[in-house]
């Protein structure tokens, strides 16, 4: 059984089918890429998985649990974390605090614990800070710890978003165009980072606009166009699929 | 009075009240539609309308013999002048207090608007004192002549109620023409839909927003004048409650929706009149504000508004 199974997933906005009949398996330990032209419905798939939208049809099963219509915070607690296509950091909180917030799903301190600074709360806070610093180390962000998130260079903000997502110890990480807006060198570095995330034991579902970028690191590639899956399989096969070429380059190419 | 007559009596009172609320509500709804700001000071512009009317009237030598067409002429001039002055105040408020904050976090302009409201109230308090100010009995029969009551099927209709209804409906018709039949109206609707796109189409955004404030404030000015006639008094704090009730009307109708504001205004007026008849005068604001909360909780888009999904 796969870690994440999407079965005949559909989402309609009014009369428009943003995602239509999508079936997709993510095996534990793999890097799966979701690619396709702009407006193909890739981000909608993420929004369905993380509970921003409820599916119109089909099912989302993660580790034997159906996620359909589950609230975002519950999805995160269930073991899925994500980043956003347009960076959504907590701009006016420190870099360290951003990562600490990311740990929220694994924290247990009640409001009373927090208010009274019980031993439990202080111990947990120390642990969370320690883990957050580790993540900052891993992503090369240590020197930015006390800066505001918004003051980081763009590429670093992308990294911080991934660090923040990893703070919740997810089994599955959804990355929504982590390379968007970065230069080719940064993109390559990011892809290496994605591989090292996988080596930490985190399965990755990756959205990317640029097909060539993901070919090297993906175990499987799914191609969406107008909400429909038009091809899937190992990168080499998908790359030469005529329907994929048509979707990317237009008819007659 | 028989039960049914009493009901219709209150219905007419409610419609008259509603006419005034509708006129104020239009200003809230138009401004919200175009800049997404709850113009908290708008209710006080309405009070300002009756204060301006009073000051203009004080300049005109009126006597109890002034009557007939002279009164109509004077009334029309006063309405137009009061509306104009209120409109200018509305534009000034937008220019001085809101424009700078157009891209600030949402809290900021709302807090400023509350501040402007307090300032206006206090200026009016300094201007005409802390007690109720009498408003001339300014009716077609002549100055100081008690107003006529037409009796239709056992229900008495006060002349002043009739004036309020007629004037407010005329003002609303004029607004409809302006919004749906003129170039300015088209610009306003375009700016409300998508400010950036409107700008790309060559629409002067600042100008259009200023005009929206002008028109909204002018309508409040008209409401201020007729409220003076209707109640026979005015008071520097009137605008706070009236404004909040008119805002309720705008929300009830669907904020941003011009027809909705009119509908909501009349409904709130009728609710208020019926509450004071069948429950008690002192519960009217509780009832109206409960409606406000219930509408916002259960149908934030109002009766005629459309649900707009938030973008992710």
């Amino acid at each position, binding site marked *: 059984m796969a870690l994440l199974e999407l079965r005949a997933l559909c989402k309609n906005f009014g009369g428009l089918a943003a995602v239509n009949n999508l079936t997709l398996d993510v095996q534990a330990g793999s890097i799966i890429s979701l690619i396709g032209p702009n407006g193909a419905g890739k981000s909608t798939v993420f929004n369905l998985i993380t509970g921003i939208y409820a599916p119109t049809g089909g099912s989302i099963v993660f580790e034997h649990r159906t996620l359909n219509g589950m609230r975002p915070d519950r999805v995160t607690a269930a073991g899925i974390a994500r980043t956003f296509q347009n960076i959504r950091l907590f701009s006016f909180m420190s870099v360290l605090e951003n990562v600490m917030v990311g740990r929220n799903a694994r924290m247990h301190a009640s409001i009373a614990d927090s208010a009274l600074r019980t031993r439990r709360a202080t111990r947990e806070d120390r642990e969370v800070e320690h883990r957050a610093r580790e993540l900052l180390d891993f992503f090369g962000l240590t020197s930015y710890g006390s800066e505001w998130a918004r003051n980081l260079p763009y590429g670093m903000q992308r990294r911080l978003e991934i660090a923040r997502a990893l703070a919740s110890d997810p089994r599955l990480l959804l990355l929504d165009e982590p390379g968007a807006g970065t230069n080719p060198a940064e993109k390559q570095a990011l892809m290496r980072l994605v591989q090292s995330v996988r080596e930490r034991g985190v399965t990755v579902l990756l959205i990317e606009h640029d097909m060539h970028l993901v070919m090297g690191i993906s175990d499987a590639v799914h191609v969406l166009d107008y909400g429909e899956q038009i091809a899937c399989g190992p990168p080499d096969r998908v790359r030469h699929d005529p329907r994929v070429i048509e979707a990317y380059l237009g008819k007659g190419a | 009075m028989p039960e049914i007559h009493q009901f219709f009596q209150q219905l007419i009172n409610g419609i008259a009240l509603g006419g005034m609320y509708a006129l104020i509500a239009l200003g809230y709804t138009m401004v919200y539609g175009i800049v997404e700001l709850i113009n908290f000071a708008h209710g006080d512009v309405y009070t300002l309308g009756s204060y301006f009317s009073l000051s203009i009237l004080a300049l005109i030598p009126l006597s109890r013999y002034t009557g007939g067409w002279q009164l109509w002429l004077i009334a029309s001039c006063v309405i137009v002048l009061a509306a104009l002055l209120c409109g200018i105040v509305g534009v000034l408020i937008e220019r001085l207090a809101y424009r700078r904050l157009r891209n*600030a976090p949402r809290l900021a302009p709302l807090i400023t608007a509350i501040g402007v409201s307090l300032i206006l109230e206090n200026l009016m308090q300094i201007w005409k004192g802390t007690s109720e100010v009498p408003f001339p009995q300014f009716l077609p029969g002549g100055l100081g002549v008690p107003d006529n009551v037409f009796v239709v099927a056992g229900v008495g209709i006060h002349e002043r109620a009739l004036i309020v209804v007629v004037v407010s409906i005329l003002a609303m018709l004029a607004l409809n023409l302006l919004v749906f039949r003129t170039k300015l109206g088209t610009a306003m609707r375009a700016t409300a839909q998508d400010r950036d796109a409107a700008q790309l189409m060559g629409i002067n955004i600042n100008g259009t927003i200023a005009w929206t404030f002008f028109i909204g404030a002018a309508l409040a000015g008209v409401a201020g004048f007729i409220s003076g006639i209707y109640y026979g008094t005015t008071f520097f704090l009137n605008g706070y409650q009236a404004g909040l009730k008119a805002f309720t009307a705008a929300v009830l109708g669907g904020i941003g929706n011009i027809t909705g504001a009119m509908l909501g205004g009349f409904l709130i007026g009728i609710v208020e009149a019926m509450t004071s008849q069948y429950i008690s005068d002192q519960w009217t604001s509780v009832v109206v504000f409960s409606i406000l*909360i219930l509408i916002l909780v259960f149908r934030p888009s109002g009766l005629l508004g459309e649900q707009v999904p938030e973008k992710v």
Partner: protein
Amino acid sequence: MKRVLPLVIIVALAFVPLLDRNASHISAYADTGGLVLLAFGLNIIVGYTGLLALGFAAFFAIGAYTYAFLASPQFGIHLNFWPMIGVSAAVAGLFGLVLGAPTLRLRGDYLAIVTLGFGEIVPQVLQNLDKWTGGPDGIAGIDQPRLFGFGFGFNPVPYYYLYLAIILVSLWLLNNLRHSRIGRSWMAIREDELAAAHMGINTTTAKLAAFSLGAAFAGVAGVLFAAKLSTVSPSGFDFNTSVMILAALVLGGMGNLPGVITGAVIIGLLNFLILPQATNWVQTLGQQMHIAVLASVDLNQYRFLVYGIILVTVMLFRPEGLIPSATRRAELHAEASSGAPAQADG
């Protein structure tokens, strides 16, 4: 220095009643303490969590009337003052929950209006249900606290110390909250609610917690208010009071405790001490110089003009307030200072 300064201030404040023997001054200081507590409560909601609540005085009223009902001749119930602090906080907090539960999902400005409507309804209901509440006259003869056999009575000095003690405890609690799981959650919600939800924060619960905790602070302020005055009436809890609290918060700087205290102290002293005193001076001067205008002047009625001017000018020219948190300053000036490096406040 950073650790010494607060200690110096606290010690200095403890000596104030020994240096200033004027009872009306001490009373004004104590009332200012009440405003500090109210501003603390509103700061959780507006400053930390970014939710605008406009009818905040309603929770103040609920706290005050809860104590008035349970410790006065009104119903012949005379519960002890000290546990009632907690009870009234809980009742106000509960009302916060009841109002917040259906409304907190509304957009910011709608929420502001809902709370404003609530703020209108509460005093009106208190006024109308005269069988229970005493109507517009309110409830008199409310019990005053006793401690180890010492009755507080109408002597303002013990109230001054009580406010000081409760403010210090509150400061400790608020500082803990700010630097904890829930505090970070609140700020994350203020910054980006959707992203906050994706951190596993139950945004509804966190917002409700902010709302009812803020209301609870107002509840505590209500008990102290009712006990010190020994009487409550609906007129003390209207929109004007809500505006005063908001003005304190805006003036000092939202989201930052030193700022909140500064704002509340300035507004409080202005309201309870400076304007009444100045009115006296001007009137006395007017009487001696036989200037009728001055003799009958009442500066108190202009305080809302002052608050209005504060709200407008601060939002336009210094939106972060007098003593801002580093965070809020940059946020509110985001347009002007984009990209400027700065340190986050910890």
